[in-house]
């Protein structure tokens, strides 16, 4: 390598590059990453959507901080919006109204900020679903799943703190609900709310405190975790879908420079453009309708932003009268049960990669993704989880479902209560059956070829439809998947069978009992021979 010399540095660009490299060693980074390969698939861009939404949020949010006053000091609104003139409200609400009605482009920035926030959490959710259903969380990426999960929770926290800042009627009632929920927690609830609100609800501190969290602490954490998340993507290199030419040892795609830079860079502008278009044309959070917070009024259809909906739905589905007095204290089961339900649900999502790794005992690195059908039980568990979440989510809009479909809200809630338990089970069974059926179909096509629709008459007078065999590439697509078989319960070297081993064996049976193995060459040969007879 010593006899290689870089081309002479002539021209402005050359001189500048030389200047930079002599002070930063940047040529090393360009050499290392400039031609790094990224695989190309639409579902790989969902994480990027999340990243880009965060950038949009940072940009628009910074603009908003120049005008927003995170203070609950009472003022009389004297801005441009006539129906609130002279009304007493907090400085936070008044400054948000000023951003909306007295600063050019202010409402646009507010709306882009809020829409991007909804998109941020939604794209994280979709990205997580993609990672889950393709098994991208398997070794060596379990920890990156955990980091991503933390980002999901942070994003929800960012969203909720932001939703609460304008101190309008909707967000005030949202805070009231948080206050009531935390109050209901055993032992610590009363004191946590007391400290959070700086005394009694609503107090005069909460907006300022949430503001610190919203613009300082939480974004700092989000940034740190994004950096970690991306660092691991570089260390692990991106996963890829199985296909001809793709192996566990390679990455097939496009180099960062120039193709990927153009596509991913362009995609940032596309995402920003779409959000800007929505922000320019569709109202979000019209605080001027809600008016300032006041503990007495409330609006019909008081709901949180979509990503907190599942928690609100959990609160709504609790049956009446669940509260007990034990040992001189109040146990608010109508709070404790939904809170536990959410914690367990989130914990299960967090822990899933580790559970699956334990069940399979698979220590190999997996860089080729699973097609969802090729991991039927995982796919079914995912479907059940999505269904469970969806039922809670629907419950958060029970009143709107009732008015729009002309049914009773009691009927909606009672139905959803049943569905919360039954629907995930049905979803599990259905998804598993569909996955297995698709695997069977793949096998069928592989062994017998696909129907061409061409019917021929054989010399003996028999009619038959010609089946065409797949070519080698299509065949590979259908046979190259990861196959698992349930483990046998065998005594360990000490000759014992422990409870843990039993557990693992039964879990392994649950996962892999119904199994359709990929076609082997031998089977294929036999099928071909059979076809020729």
């Amino acid at each position: 390598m010593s006899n290689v010399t870089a081309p002479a540095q002539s021209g402005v660009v050359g001189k500048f590059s030389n200047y930079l490299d002599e002070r930063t060693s940047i040529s090393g980074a360009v050499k290392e990453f400039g031609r790094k390969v990224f695989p190309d698939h639409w579902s790989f861009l969902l994480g990027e959507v999340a990243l880009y939404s965060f950038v949009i949020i940072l940009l628009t949010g910074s603009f908003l901080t120049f005008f927003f006053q995170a203070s609950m000091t009472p003022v009389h609104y004297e801005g441009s919006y006539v129906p609130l003139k002279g009304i007493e409200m907090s400085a936070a609400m008044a400054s948000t109204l000023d951003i909306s009605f007295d600063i050019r482009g202010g409402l646009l920035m507010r709306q882009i900020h809020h829409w991007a926030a909804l998109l941020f959490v939604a794209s994280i959710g979709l990205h997580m679903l993609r990672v889950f259903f393709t098994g991208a969380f398997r070794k060596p990426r379990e920890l990156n799943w955990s980091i991503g999960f933390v980002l999901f929770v942070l994003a929800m926290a960012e969203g909720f703190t932001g939703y609460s800042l304008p101190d309008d009627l909707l967000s005030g009632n949202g805070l009231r609900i948080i206050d009531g929920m935390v109050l209901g927690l055993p032992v610590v609830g009363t004191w946590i709310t007391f400290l959070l609100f700086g005394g009694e609800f609503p107090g005069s501190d909460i907006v300022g405190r949430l503001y610190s969290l919203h613009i300082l602490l939480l974004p700092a954490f989000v940034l740190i975790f994004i950096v970690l998340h991306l660092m691991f993507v570089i260390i692990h290199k991106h996963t890829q879908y199985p296909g001809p030419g793709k192996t566990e040892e390679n990455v097939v795609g496009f180099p960062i420079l120039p193709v990927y830079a153009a596509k991913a860079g362009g995609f940032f502008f596309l995402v920003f453009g779409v959000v800007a278009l929505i922000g320019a044309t569709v109202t979000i959070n019209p605080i001027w309708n809600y008016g300032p917070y006041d503990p007495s009024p409330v609006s019909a259809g008081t709901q949180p932003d979509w990503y907190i909906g599942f928690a609100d739905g959990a609160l709504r589905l609790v049956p009446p009268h669940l509260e007990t007095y034990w040992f001189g204290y109040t146990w608010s089961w109508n709070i404790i049960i939904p809170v536990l339900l959410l914690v367990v649900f989130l914990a299960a999502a967090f822990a899933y990669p580790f559970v699956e790794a334990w069940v399979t005992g698979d220590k190999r690195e997996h860089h080729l993704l699973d097609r969802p059908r090729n991991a039927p039980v995982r796919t079914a568990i995912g479907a059940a989880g999505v269904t469970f979440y969806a039922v809670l989510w629907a419950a958060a809009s029970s009143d709107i479902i009732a008015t729009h479909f002309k049914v009773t809200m009691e009927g909606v809630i009672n139905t959803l209560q049943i569905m919360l338990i039954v629907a995930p089970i049905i979803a599990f069974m259905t998804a598993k059956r569909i996955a297995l059926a698709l695997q069977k179909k793949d096998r069928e096509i592989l062994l017998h070829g696909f129907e061409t629709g061409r019917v021929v008459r054989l010399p003996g007078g028999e009619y038959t439809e010609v089946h065409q065999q797949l070519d080698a590439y299509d065949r590979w697509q259908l046979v190259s998947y990861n196959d698992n078989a349930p483990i046998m319960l065998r005594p360990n070297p000490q000759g014992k069978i422990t409870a843990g081993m039993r557990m693992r064996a039964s879990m392994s049976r649950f996962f892999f009992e119904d199994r359709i193995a990929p076609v082997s060459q031998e089977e294929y040969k036999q099928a071909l021979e059979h076809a020729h007879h």
Partner: protein
Amino acid sequence: MRKNMSESKATRRNGRRGPLASVALILIGLVATGGAYAALSTASASASVDLSSPAVIDEGQKLFAANCSTCHGQQAQGTANGPSLIGVGSAAVDFQVGTGRMPMQMSGPQAEQKPVQFTDEQTKALAAYVASLAPGPAIPAQSELEGGNVSNGGELFRINCAMCHNVAGAGGALTEGKYAPELKGVAAVHVYEAMLTGPQNMPVFNDLNLSPEEKKDIISYLTYIQENPSAGGLELSNLGPVSEGLFLWVFGLGAIVALTVWVTAKSN
């Protein structure tokens, strides 16, 4: 309320011109709306009926006997199928009949708004007849419906009305299939009568609870928010975060996923 259309159309247009042109347009718009309004209000004045005239009451009684007495009784004394109307006043009749809620098509959780069955004169005649039975809340005059304090009206609306009708008047769910209707497009006079008489499950807001002045403020607020559509663009039915979330998932993410497919598809 009928003047809204012409005025909002006029103002909506001003956006695409220079500042001077918009001023001119606004002026023209204001003159036009003023004219239209004057024409409309004289029209409604000419249509007004003297509710105390015996001829009108007589006409109302005939209509009542033919259309209402099955449920409300021959003397409006009420039956098992319908409440007594003695003392409900002309306001209640004008609201129920004028919005098409009465005569009721079938019994359900609540009387639905339907196409109005009677002409304005017939409705007024019915109102006159019912009002003649016993004193009760009367149909408000046009002067009680406009020119109120919008911000006071907004505050009163949020405290007294928004919990059922939603802060933007989009309506909301009640128990057992009942609902508080959307207020958009409801005539000012009907809003006033509803407050005064408390139709169906709506509580009564008599003049000692909300004074006529305060009712006027509330109606002026409703008029204002209808004449000034959201500064932010499409309102998504004003249903709040649920419709915003739905929009984002369907159209926002829908568009973005479509773009991801385009970005990664192989160029042909």
